[in-house]
């Protein structure tokens, strides 16, 4: 459980995070979304006691994280895959961290196997790692203490498609085990298949805190696409029911105002054969863009 209340961080005259309040519950993968510069990383650093808040509180499992003398068994975190000494081997890096938290040596090999850094990779110096391998090492660090709360800052950066699939499965499994999994990203498409809850921020302020389903509903209403050899007749039927019908071509129609179930029923009643019937939800990406349009810090292409 992560509880953030009226959290604020000011750097001189800039306010990175302003009056932010939200709760992240266990048993879910919660996405933490916002455009670049929205304050995601600052918020995560405040949760981990790395950065002192200017106001408000950031609690993990009911405590301020810095109150714990050792952290790995309470929170596992991957902030930046580069936060590691390039001269150390993956195994030495994990061994030192495990030892500082009195985690048995055997656990190091367990997490190395879990993230797929086995054999010579574990002995290689981290300096020689690709970004994807560093992400895997960072995830291994987060898993080391078998913690109830996990935080990941942009964990999918640099991972290959196989790695992305693996990470998604891992996050879901961790949440299924009852852990709190909090994952930041600036790309909605990354969250679409990973998170079931969302916290969206922009310019340091909360924009939305709700489930992925609710968030998706914020976007443009879904439309129905239907294909039929008798599209002309079907268009007449649907229009009579109050739908706004726009033909794509001779056989395909775009239907607004009726759902797929109703369109199917009407086609059946009027004996119109169907080739395709599909609901097109506005993409989450669109919903996200619309919602954060006002709070994008760095806009390309047009003067502000």
């Amino acid at each position, binding site marked *: 459980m992560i509880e953030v209340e009226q959290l604020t961080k000011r750097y001189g005259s800039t306010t990175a995070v302003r009056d932010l309040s939200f709760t992240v519950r266990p048993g879910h993968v919660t996405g933490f979304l916002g455009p670049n510069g929205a304050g995601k990383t600052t918020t995560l650093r405040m949760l981990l006691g*790395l950065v002192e808040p200017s106001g408000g509180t950031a609690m993990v499992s009911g405590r301020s994280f810095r109150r714990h003398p050792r952290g790995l068994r309470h929170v596992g975190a991957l902030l930046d895959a580069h936060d590691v000494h390039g001269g150390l081997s993956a195994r030495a890096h994990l061994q030192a961290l495990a030892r500082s938290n009195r985690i048995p040596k055997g656990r190091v090999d367990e997490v190395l196997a879990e993230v797929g850094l086995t054999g010579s990779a574990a002995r290689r110096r981290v300096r020689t790692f690709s970004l994807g391998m560093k992400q895997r090492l960072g995830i291994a660090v987060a898993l080391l*203490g*078998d*913690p109830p709360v996990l935080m990941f800052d942009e964990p999918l950066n640099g991972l290959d498609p196989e790695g992305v699939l693996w990470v998604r499965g891992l996050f879901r499994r961790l949440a299924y085990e009852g852990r709190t999994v909090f994952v930041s990203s600036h790309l909605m498409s990354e969250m679409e298949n990973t998170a079931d809850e969302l916290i969206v921020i922009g310019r340091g302020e909360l924009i939305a805190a709700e489930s992925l389903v609710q968030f998706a509903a914020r976007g443009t209403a879904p439309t129905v696409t239907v294909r039929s050899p008798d599209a002309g007749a079907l268009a007449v039927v649907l229009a009579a029911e109050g739908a706004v019908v726009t033909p794509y071509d001779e056989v395909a129609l775009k239907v607004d105002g009726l759902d797929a179930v109703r369109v199917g029923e009407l086609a059946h009643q009027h004996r119109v054969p169907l080739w395709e019937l599909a609901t097109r939800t506005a993409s989450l990406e669109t919903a996200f863009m619309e919602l954060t349009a006002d709070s994008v810090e760095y806009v390309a292409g047009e003067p502000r």
Partner: protein
Amino acid sequence: MTTLAVPAARFTDLLAAEWIKLRSLRSTYWAFGCGALAVVGFNANAARADYVNFPHYGGPIRESFLYWALRDAFTEGAAMILVLTCAGIGAITIVGEYATGLVRTTFTAVPDRRALMAAKVVVLTAVMTAFGAIVAGASYAVSQAILDGRGLGVPISHPGAWRVVAASALLAPVCALVGMGMGALIRHSATTMVLTTGVLLLLPSFVTERYHWTACVRNALPFNAWVRLVDVGYGHEPFTLVEKYPTTVAGGWVVFAVWAGVAAVVAVVAVDRRDV
């Protein structure tokens, strides 16, 4: 979910973790190896020069050659190399963490930063004291063995000989801690090294003993304290210069202790307070 039971936090775990980091870095061995070779080599060469030149030395030098032999045991040039090596290693133990970002991973694993920094201080002090003892001991043994070729070597049992070895050995941890303290304050590799070198090596030659206050500053610097501690003939040997504001052996040890202590406290406190 099976969360592991949380054992009590122990300081010894942090010591072990810091030790793992230090011994796992290849650069550690290079720094210690090259530093030791340079220091011992410098001192051995000083002894060799005296060995070669001795037949040409005049009466006064021959009479007081005992002090010359003890100066060869650890020369000023070697001390400068030792200062530079140790300050660099001390600085890198903390600046290395900041520069690579490892510090965030470390603090997330150990939110008790004071304990963490205290562990770094203890490990650094122990390792550098051992390093100092090895190079100072080896320098003494090698230089006196060379001079023994003319029967001029001074046995370690000679009054003051131990002080030469001990002061030179302890110069290592003192300078390493100063480097670490500066690193914790500055957190930037190049700036830390420039300022640390300035304080430890340049300042002693810039500050004169012309006025009382400048003499006080001068005598309070670790390098000058070392110079006083290894000067076995201070005050009664014809070739030593006794300054206008004389210093004592006890004063030298106090300077060592204060610099080391203050640097250790600065390292712990500075790191505890600031955002990373």
